[in-house]
């Protein structure tokens, strides 16, 4: 179930599924610079891992995954975090991942079930999804909240109805978050629009 609110800055998704006949609750929260994924069968967060993409010069990305709380001798948990951060990175987002796994067993089947459920939810709930790569329209509102539509040819995305207000006083204007678009691309698009608009006030 998606829990969204036009004003609250986080997008939350909650789901419940059975993995190996055990009820598993999963919560996915999308922060500005992180994804938080909590998967629990035991009523607590369990082991907490932190995964992020490393900045590097090579073409192939490298990832850093570490256990910050809980079991440090369970390689399957690390592998699970590694798979998810790689998926996040391949979808164009540079966000890090905080993964919490409170599981009764650490078998391959259980962890595969969690990874596939989370990846599916990422795609469904537009956390990470690339639809097309052909822009036809973007909109940015300036201080008076009057839309100023411009047309560009390179990327295509859809605008969603909610807006996220910039809190920095030096950057007036409302930016529309982008739907069905890779989150890494979203950031780039916003920067591109601002660049095209110059310093719109």
């Amino acid at each position: 179930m998606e829990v969204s609110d036009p004003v609250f800055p986080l997008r939350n998704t909650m789901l419940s599924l059975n993995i190996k006949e055990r009820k598993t609750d999963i919560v996915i929260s999308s922060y500005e610079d992180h994804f938080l994924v909590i998967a629990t069968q035991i009523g607590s967060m369990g082991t907490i891992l932190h995964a992020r993409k490393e900045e590097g010069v090579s073409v192939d990305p490298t990832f850093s995954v570490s256990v910050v709380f809980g079991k440090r001798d369970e390689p399957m948990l690390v592998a699970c975090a590694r798979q998810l951060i790689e998926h996040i990175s391949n979808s164009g987002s540079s966000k890090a991942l905080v993964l919490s796994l409170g599981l009764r067993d650490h078998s391959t089947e259980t962890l595969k079930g969690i990874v596939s459920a989370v990846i599916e939810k990422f795609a469904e709930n537009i956390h990470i999804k690339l639809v097309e790569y052909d822009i036809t329209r973007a909109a940015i509102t300036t201080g008076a909240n009057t839309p100023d539509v411009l047309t560009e040819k390179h990327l295509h995305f859809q605008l969603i109805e909610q807006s996220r207000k910039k809190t920095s006083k030096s950057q007036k204007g409302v930016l529309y978050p982008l739907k069905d678009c890779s989150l890494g691309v979203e950031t780039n698009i916003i920067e591109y629009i601002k660049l095209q608009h110059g310093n719109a006030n």
Partner: protein
Amino acid sequence: MVSNGGGGGGGGVQAAMKADDEVGSGLQLTCFSQLSDHHDDVSLHFHILRLHKQIYAWIGCNSAKFGHLYAAAPTPPSNTVGVTSLIGGASDNIGSGIARRLVLKTGLNVVLACNIPKNSPILEANAEKILVQKLISLGYTKPKI
């Protein structure tokens, strides 16, 4: 149960939609935002997840950045609370004090993420007060003896 409710108090409340659907047993998610009592240009955002034996909370100050992550837990048989930083921060940073006092009030393990800037004691105290009031209203705190 998932609820998105506006918090009470001065400074304006960002009302949010209410969802009363059951989503998984034992998980309760509450999200709300509120303007700081002392700073009209500061929005505080709260994200509370109640698990069966634990509470996860996030406090956002104007932004949706994750911030530093802390874990705190009671350490029986004594009345003390153990607290540690997990991501960013240190054991004497802003969120650690809040996490520790949440454990004292709820008796549960607490994992807290917080992006309140350093050297903002009034803001920190205000955020903690709002959070605790919400936890009381949700029934997550221990009854006072």
